[in-house]
């Protein structure tokens, strides 16, 4: 009996036509995209901010300062690379010219403004103030998503000192340029709003000519940590939960590997904190809004912060971060500067690890630490 059923079931199974219902796990074509920021919201914020021309110019202090610092890096990275080269660059011994440069996410062309400003900090060996960097650039293409922001400063005098082409594209994450078309790509305070940073960096690497640099500055990790923390506490105490009011940012330690993954060589990444003092948290938030830098995270609370949370936030921020006797509250902006070079023929290579034969102590000076 037992053997019979066994055999019959076996035979039935082997005769039955096998209809394949098996499905395979499949991936949708292309890279899966993680959307962190709402691009439409960001676009609206930038547009709205720039339409108030005066208000928007007033809060350009941060973007102008960062653009200046970024352009200084262009000067240094300009020279032949290496340890000695850095010293040579400082002596303004610069030969390289950049016929065509892209400003990625130009805001209101702050980089163009910085390039045309003579920098009194950098002097030639003869002691004269070095000419503005714009002399070394024949054409600057500024690309931005917001028309109002990009064309805001079109009438200002700096536009006559450098040839600027203004391009408006629907989306900064897909660049409409031919491969090998730029001698440098600069970007100041824009790419922290990019959803897919690895893909963008790969595109940048493609549109660069061989042995051309990508120099960028973006807000990173600890930017506005004071506001982030105190808003969380205020939310907790007033509403009993937390919702994100400050957008997430990339961390310094990830930037190196991001550049590496996109194929850049000879990387330099460094960090700088700019601390700005504001009279109160309301002024800070108003300025952020006028810069077009307010929160644009997906699924954010569409209602504005309630008055209760704003009041609570003001009290907590002051208590946590204001120093005794200080007139205002500090807000930290952490800037990540990155430089990467597209691979090229005859490009200088970094030396092998451990092959150094000069003691840095002899060059830089400095002594032993005093042991307690």
């Amino acid at each position, binding site marked *: 009996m037992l053997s019979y059923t066994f055999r019959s079931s076996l035979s039935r199974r082997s005769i039955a036509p096998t209809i394949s219902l098996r499905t395979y796990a499949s991936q949708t074509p292309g890279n899966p995209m993680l959307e962190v920021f709402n691009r439409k919201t960001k676009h609206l914020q930038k547009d709205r901010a720039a339409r108030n021309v005066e208000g928007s110019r007033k809060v350009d202090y941060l973007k102008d300062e960062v653009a200046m610092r970024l352009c200084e890096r262009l000067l240094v990275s300009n020279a032949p690379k290496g340890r000695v080269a850095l010293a040579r660059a400082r002596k303004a011994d610069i030969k390289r010219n950049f016929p065509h440069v892209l400003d990625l996410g130009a805001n209101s062309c702050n980089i163009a403004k910085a390039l045309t400003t003579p920098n009194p900090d950098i002097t030639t060996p003869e002691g004269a103030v070095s000419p503005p960097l714009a002399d070394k650039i024949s054409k600057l293409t500024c690309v931005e998503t917001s028309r109002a922001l990009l064309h805001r400063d079109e009438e200002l005098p700096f536009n006559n000192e450098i040839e600027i082409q203004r391009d408006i594209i629907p989306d900064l994450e897909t660049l409409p340029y031919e491969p090998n078309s730029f001698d440098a790509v600069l970007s100041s305070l824009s790419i922290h709003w990019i959803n897919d940073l690895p893909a963008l960096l790969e595109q940048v690497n493609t549109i660069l000519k061989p042995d051309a640099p990508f120099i960028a500055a973006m807000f990173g990790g600890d930017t506005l940590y004071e506001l982030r923390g105190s808003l969380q506490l*205020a939310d*907790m*105490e*007033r509403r*009993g939960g937390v919702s994100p009011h400050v957008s997430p940012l990339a961390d310094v330690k990830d930037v190196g590997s991001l550049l590496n993954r996109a194929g850049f060589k000879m990387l330099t990444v460094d960090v700088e904190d700019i601390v700005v003092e504001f009279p109160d948290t309301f002024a800070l938030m*108003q300025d952020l809004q006028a810069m077009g830098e307010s929160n644009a995270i997906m699924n954010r609370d569409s209602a504005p912060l309630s008055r209760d949370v704003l009041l609570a936030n003001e009290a*907590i921020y002051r208590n946590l971060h204001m120093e005794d006797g200080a007139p205002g509250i500090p807000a930290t902006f952490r800037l990540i500067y990155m430089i990467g070079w597209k691979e090229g023929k005859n490009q200088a290579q970094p030396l092998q690890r451990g092959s150094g034969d000069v003691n840095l102590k002899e060059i830089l000076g400095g002594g032993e630490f005093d042991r307690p």
Partner: protein
Amino acid sequence: MPARTRPVEKIAKASAQCSAEVAAYGKCVVTDYNSVHKDMCAKEFIRLKNCYLAASKKG
């Protein structure tokens, strides 16, 4: 025509007149900021809000 005062400016102006209450509420939350829960400092907040409302009526 003078520029329209934005709501946030009004809040800023009124809350600036309540520095004692602001300090008291801030201190209450911050003393135990690892375990903040809803209405932990409700008493202090009501005081702050009352002062704020009075100040914004005056201004």
